[in-house]
Each structure stands twice: as structure tokens, then as C-alpha cells.
């Protein structure tokens, strides 16, 4: 029997015979199972196929992988998207968000600077801030009223000297090191990023020149206004969405609305830029259709083509070339969990937050700009029908990750193939490629050290 003498004694003294019996039965069951399985390896697979063209399915399925991601990815040498500067414009404004599963408070102090700290009281670990947004000159934990300034410094401990000379902290008690973890902050074009790592490169170096320029193209030098916020719960591991949003291959195949209305086609001009690290990308498609290739889709006779579909109210597709460069669609990612979307004039940021191994929160924030004409604002609002959980060209993305998660349920030792457009992770002047997905995995493996 695996139950020690002392355990048995305590159990028989303090509890009924039934509990002892259950305990013994359980222990003997465990021993039997271990004995029966001794010829089987129960170690979880950790092998990664050579090269960048395969992704093992176990990486989407395991709690130990998610736990490691928290330490190595989200708290690692990366920049996590936290907020828009426009969300916290005034001194004392704050927002609560997440870095992986770590709750975080992002604040603006009276010096005008932005700060962020773990939303965890240094005392007993309770959340410090309980609202999504707010304004506060200081933050007081509700549990025992420990107070923090907007930079996350501990300012006051309730009853530190005790009450009427009794209780209180010991004479040798030190506040030294007592504070929630603080994040380094980088603000780029009104986007606020945070990092818990000391060795993270500057934000511009991290983004890479090309991706930084594409980000600047959309939001640089403009006063952002927030038009709405929604959270979409995805029934899949966060990395399946990180793949999906980098996947220029699926756009016209899964989302048939686009192709039917000729909003985009693989035969349109376009391409994908990928940062040196692999983790960040910007894909774009231009309005000009390559001559002589109009019938390309029809010849392929795939589901995408649908002559029956005639839209009655075309106003949703009205758009302005507000950037003057002909790019109709640009999807940009920053490793690990940031997305900036420009679909015509519909601009949104999306934050990917892992909720559990097979659940992900996707936080959408729809954007406009202070100098929008009424006409342009209406275009943005109408075009928002294209995106989000009910979007004509994105509702499928909410479900397709779940199809993978369910499809691979018994395939932890199998792997996905991502070989379209070759095996490397380079920028490519076309979109029939999975290069940016391979780039994501390169950055992921570098960060995870696997």
C-alpha cells in the first residue's frame, strides 16, 4: 500500500472508515494503472519537425505549453499591445487589460507619461483596479486598502503602525520590493505596447522598418477616435488565430464574400512583408487587377465563385482611397498578439488574449480619426459590416479555429503542413503563400526556445 502509516493513523483517528477505504482504493488504483502502463511512454511529445513547413498539433493542446508561453512569450522579450493612447488621454485615466493571462493596469500619470503594472496587490494578490476604464489619482486595493500611485508604486499600507499601538507591521518590516510588477512602455503612433523583459529591443527595431512603415501608414500622425469595442470568444488556442490572421491563402477561399464582390482576389496585386524576426507582418492587396487573369477563379471552379450573389445596396462597399496608395486591404500583425486591420476605410485593432488552452478572447476596437468627414465616418461604420463576429468577410474566422481545435483532438503526434510559397519565412510579392505563418512559428520557437 502506498499510504504511509502516519496518513492512515490521521485518517482513522479523524475521519470515518469510508474515507480510509476510498483513499486506499484510489492509491491502489493509481498503482495498478502505473503498473499496467509501465510499458507505455506517457511523456508528452515535444519534438518539432525540421524546418518551418510543419507545425505539430500538440502545441495547440497542452496546458504545460500555455504555462510556458506565459513566461517565455508574453513575459518574454516581446512587446505586447496594451492600449491606445486615445483611450487614456488625461492624467489619471486608466485601462485594465491583459498580457497573456496576467492582468495589467495601464495608466497616464500627471507627468503625461504612460505606465503599466500588474493588476495584483503586493499584499495578498487581489486585483487592484476593478473597472475596464476609469480615472483615479491613486489606486486602492479593496481588500485591505493598500494604496498605489498611477505608476504602480506602493504608497500606503493601511494600519501599518497598528491601531492604538497594537498590531501593525513588525519593526523590521520593509516595503522594499513590495510592488506589482511594472512593465516597460513603448508608444508608437498612438499604440501603447508593454514588456516585462529587460532585453526587449526598441519598439521600432522590434517592428522592423517595413512593418513599422505600414503601421505608420494607417495611424501615424492622426488623432484616433474610438468608434466601438467588442470581444469575440474564439473556441480555439490563441495561436490558431495568430496563424489565421497571417494567412493570406485562406482569405478568398474561406471568405467567399470578398471574391464574389471582387473586393480582393489572389490575382490582384499584393504581397506580404515579414519582419526579420518572422513574427511581424503586413499583407496588402492593391485595387488594380492583373490584366488577363479575371477568369482565373472561374476556371478553378471552386466554391468561392458565385454568380447568383447580387448585392442590392452597394453603399457598404463605397470607399475612399484615404491613404492615396491604392492599398485596399492591409492586415498587419505584431508578435505575439496584435493585429491592425485596414479593410477599405474600416480600421480596427485586435488584441489576441489567451483565455485557456482552447479559448481565446479577441478584443476588437474600431477606429476613426478626429478629422473624418461625416461621409468618411459613415463609410467606416457601414464597412464595419465586413469585419468582426458578424462580418461578411470575417465571421468564418471565429469558427474555423474551432474546426481545427476539434479536428486535431486525437492528433497530438501529427502535424500541419504550411508549405505554400516555399519553405522559408521571407517577404513575398504575392499572397498565395503561407510565408507569414511560417514567420510566426519561427518567432514563436525562438521565443519559446523549442
Amino acid at each position, binding site marked *: 500500500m502506498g499510504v504511509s502509516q502516519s496518513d492512515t493513523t490521521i485518517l482513522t483517528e479523524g475521519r470515518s472508515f469510508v474515507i480510509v477505504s476510498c483513499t486506499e482504493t484510489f492509491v491502489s488504483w493509481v498503482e495498478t494503472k502505473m503498473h499496467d502502463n509501465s510499458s507505455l511512454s506517457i511523456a508528452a511529445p515535444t519534438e518539432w519537425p525540421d524546418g518551418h513547413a510543419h507545425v505539430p498539433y500538440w502545441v495547440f493542446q497542452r496546458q504545460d505549453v500555455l504555462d510556458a508561453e506565459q513566461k517565455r512569450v508574453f513575459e518574454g522579450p516581446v512587446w505586447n499591445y496594451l492600449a491606445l493612447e486615445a483611450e487614456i488621454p488625461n492624467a489619471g485615466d486608466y485601462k485594465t487589460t491583459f498580457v497573456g493571462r496576467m492582468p495589467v493596469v495601464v495608466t497616464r500619470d500627471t507627468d503625461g507619461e504612460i505606465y503599466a503594472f500588474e493588476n495584483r496587490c503586493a499584499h495578498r494578490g487581489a486585483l487592484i483596479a476593478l473597472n*475596464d476604464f476609469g480615472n483615479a489619482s491613486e489606486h486602492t486595493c479593496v481588500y485591505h486598502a493598500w494604496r498605489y500611485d498611477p505608476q504602480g508604486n506602493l504608497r500606503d499600507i493601511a494600519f501599518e503602525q497598528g491601531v492604538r499601538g497594537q498590531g501593525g507591521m513588525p519593526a523590521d518590516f520593509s516595503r522594499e520590493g513590495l510592488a506589482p510588477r511594472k512593465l516597460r512602455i513603448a508608444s508608437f503612433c498612438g499604440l501603447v505596447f508593454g514588456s516585462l523583459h529587460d532585453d526587449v529591443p526598441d519598439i521600432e527595431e522590434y517592428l522592423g522598418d517595413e512593418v513599422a512603415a505600414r503601421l505608420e501608414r494607417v495611424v501615424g500622425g492622426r488623432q484616433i477616435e*474610438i*468608434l*466601438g*469595442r*467588442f*470581444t*469575440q*470568444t*474564439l*473556441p480555439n488556442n490563441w495561436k490558431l488565430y495568430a496563424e489565421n490572421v497571417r494567412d493570406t491563402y485562406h482569405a478568398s477561399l*474561406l471568405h*467567399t*464574400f470578398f471574391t*464574389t464582390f471582387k473586393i480582393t482576389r489572389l490575382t490582384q496585386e499584393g504581397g506580404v512583408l515579414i519582419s526579420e524576426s518572422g513574427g511581424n507582418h503586413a499583407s496588402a492587396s492593391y485595387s488594380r487587377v492583373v490584366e488577363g487573369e479575371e477568369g482565373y477563379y472561374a476556371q478553378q471552379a471552386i466554391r468561392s465563385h*458565385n454568380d*447568383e*450573389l*447580387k*448585392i*442590392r*445596396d452597394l*453603399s*457598404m462597399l463605397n470607399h475612399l482611397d484615404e491613404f492615396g496608395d491604392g492599398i485596399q486591404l492591409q492586415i498587419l500583425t505584431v508578435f505575439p498578439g496584435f493585429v491592425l486591420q485596414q479593410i477599405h476605410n474600416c480600421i480596427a485593432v485586435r488584441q489576441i488574449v489567451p483565455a485557456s488552452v482552447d479559448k481565446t478572447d479577441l478584443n476588437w476596437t*474600431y477606429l476613426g480619426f478626429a478629422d473624418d468627414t461625416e461621409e468618411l*465616418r459613415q463609410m467606416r*461604420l*457601414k464597412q*464595419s*459590416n465586413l469585419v*468582426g*463576429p*458578424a462580418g*461578411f468577410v470575417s*465571421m*468564418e474566422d*471565429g*469558427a474555423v479555429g*474551432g474546426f481545427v481545435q476539434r479536428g486535431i483532438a486525437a492528433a497530438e503526434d501529427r502535424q500541419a503542413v504550411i508549405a505554400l510559397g516555399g519553405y522559408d519565412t521571407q517577404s513575398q510579392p504575392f499572397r498565395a503563400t503561407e510565408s507569414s505563418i511560417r514567420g510566426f512559428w519561427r518567432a514563436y520557437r525562438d521565443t519559446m526556445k523549442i
Partner: protein
Amino acid sequence: MNDQLIQLNAEYAAALDDDRLEDWPSFFTERCFYRVTTIDNYRQGMQAGLIYADSRDMLADRILSLRKANVYEFHRYRHVVGVPRILGNDAQGGGTMRVSTGFVVIRISRQGQYEVFASGQYLDEVVTESGKLLLKRRDVVCDSSRIDTLLAIPL
């Protein structure tokens, strides 16, 4: 009038729950406004919607797209709609009634799970055309800012 509003909402819900989606636009005036948003957005005066339509044709386009272009796993809704609360009645010039009505939508998945998919209120402007009550405006204001997986069938 309350009976007619109850009937309007009952027919509206039945069209969606019975997969007669093509009937859904007929509950609206030709120039109408339909938006799905959340209480947080609504209170802050945020303009955007998960669905944002300003004509009956746009509603019809959405149904056509659901039928012909969009891909989603089979699921159904069961709307449970509350008693309409008349907030105001502009009797002049055709008359527009402002009405608030609570709702709960249960989603039934292909695998048979039930879940509360949404709850909230319909904030409506209702007019009478040819003796029939029609929605001139319906803001679907969801209580939660969270949408699970996707919103295909309208609320």
C-alpha cells in the same frame, strides 16, 4: 397598441427562429436603421455596430450573404422576447412610437448544446404603414460585450 407590438415581436422572433430569414427585412421600413451593439458602447455613444444597416436592402443583402456566401456550422436560436415598454409616442406626422423590449436568445448548436447566446433590449422606433406596424429603427443593445464564436443569424 401593446397587443400589436407583442404580435410584431412574436412574428419577428418566429421568422428568425424558424429559419425564415428572408422574411426578416419585411419587419422594417424601406429606409430603416438596424444595429447590433452593446450596452457599454451604447452608453458611451459609440457609433459602431456588429451589424450596421441603414436600409431594408442592406438587411436583405445580409440574409443573401448568409445563404450564399458565408460559412458557419448549423445552429438555431430561440428568442424569448419580453413585454414591450412604450417609452414615448409621437402622435404627429404618422406617429413614431419609441419602445423598449427585453430579450434573451438561446443558441442551440449542431451538437445539441444550449447556451444563452445573448440578452439585452430592443430599442425601437415603430411606425404604422398601411395599417401595419413596422420598425423604423431597431438598436439591439446586448447586455454583454462578448459574442461567442460568431454572430451569423441576426438578433
